[in-house]
């Protein structure tokens, strides 16, 4: 019996090698961003940010927090469906000289609040009567890219709040690090329901 001792020719080997390399490249390109995404989520809804968002919620729920302009930005005809402002703008909703305003400014500074968004409790637009929050905020370049990534990551909260909350506050924190010059400030995010 004649033995088959030919093996592979060079072209066959090269084609298979190129194919395997292409498959591994596609896997790597798709997998690598997931690692970064996973590491970024360390700073989504962490404990410190949750407590920070809690205090922003407390301020919004105060009786003298001027909510009508916020409400019209959320629900008004042709409005984006959300209020967006920095800590100064947010605390400016309290009457001048009020105790709440002073507390709000100091707390926002110590909690490192950078920006605040107030929107409806549900983040989808399935009722068809309100603006599409997620779609509008994704096109809003005044909102930082990392804040938009956090919003994209959030669920739509389609189940009604057990506390009958109608609004939601989303907070961006700009946190300092230690004294080391090597460490850049970093951003964390959190959200909390608001009962008004």
């Amino acid at each position, binding site marked *: 019996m004649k033995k088959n001792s030919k093996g592979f020719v060079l072209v066959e080997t090269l084609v298979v090698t190129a194919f395997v390399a292409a498959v591994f490249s596609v896997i790597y390109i798709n997998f690598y961003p997931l690692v970064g995404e996973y590491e970024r989520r360390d700073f989504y809804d962490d*404990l410190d940010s949750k*407590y920070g968002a809690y205090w922003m919620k407390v301020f919004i729920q105060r009786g003298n927090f001027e909510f009508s302009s916020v409400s019209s930005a959320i629900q008004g005809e042709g409005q984006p469906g959300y209020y967006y402002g920095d800590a100064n703008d947010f605390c400016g909703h309290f009457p001048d000289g009020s105790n709440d305003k002073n507390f709000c400014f*100091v707390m926002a500074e*110590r909690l490192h609040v950078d920006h605040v968004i107030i929107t409806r409790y549900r983040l989808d637009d399935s009722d068809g009567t309100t603006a599409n929050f997620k779609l509008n905020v994704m096109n809003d370049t005044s909102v930082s890219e990392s804040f938009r990534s956090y919003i994209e990551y959030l669920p739509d909260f389609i189940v009604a709040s057990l506390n009958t909350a109608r609004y939601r506050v989303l907070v961006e924190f700009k946190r300092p690090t*230690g004294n080391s010059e090597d460490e850049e400030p970093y951003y964390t995010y959190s959200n909390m329901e608001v009962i008004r």
Partner: protein
Amino acid sequence: MIRKLNNKGMTVVEILVTFLLVAVIIVSLYDGIVALKNKETIASYKLSLVTYRDLLTKDIQDDLIKIGLSSAQTSSLSDGTGYRITMALRDGSKRILEVKQQFGCNAVDAIEVDELCVKAGIDKNASDDFSISYGPEGDVVEYPLPNLGREELDNLDNSGTHTISALRINEVDISTANQVFSLRIVLNHPDLGSKYSIDIVSPINYP
């Protein structure tokens, strides 16, 4: 019937080429495996530190949010090695937070001892001693810092060794200005930086 066996085996050149290929593959994988091992160690450090920070933060914040803070006073520990914060809550009870921050001498030779320790007033044979304790007055419980690596350094006078921790309390910032209490305990680790520090902020006497 006589059956002919295939007993040719491999030539020396084939074996050498195979060994060479295996050696190249192992060497190229080694760095990757060592890097992954380091990454795994750092991930376990991070988990320990985040768990520690979250437990302590939750215990303190539970009291400050559920009961409310009516005043906070800061003093030095009796041996001068840290801070004692007495928090009076709105139900009349008190909570005590003690932060011990004693740096050891992290120097390996006589020149460094002079630079890093003597000038900073640190005993040249001193070990690191960091701890945080919290609880109601009279029932304060220690929350020992997790062990995220330690180094035993020989005392320069050959009298034994002293210990330097990788995780250190680098800074303690306490403020009660403008009727807002804030406490930042900077927990620093060479591999994790200061991102996992303790940050407590609460208004004082907020109606």
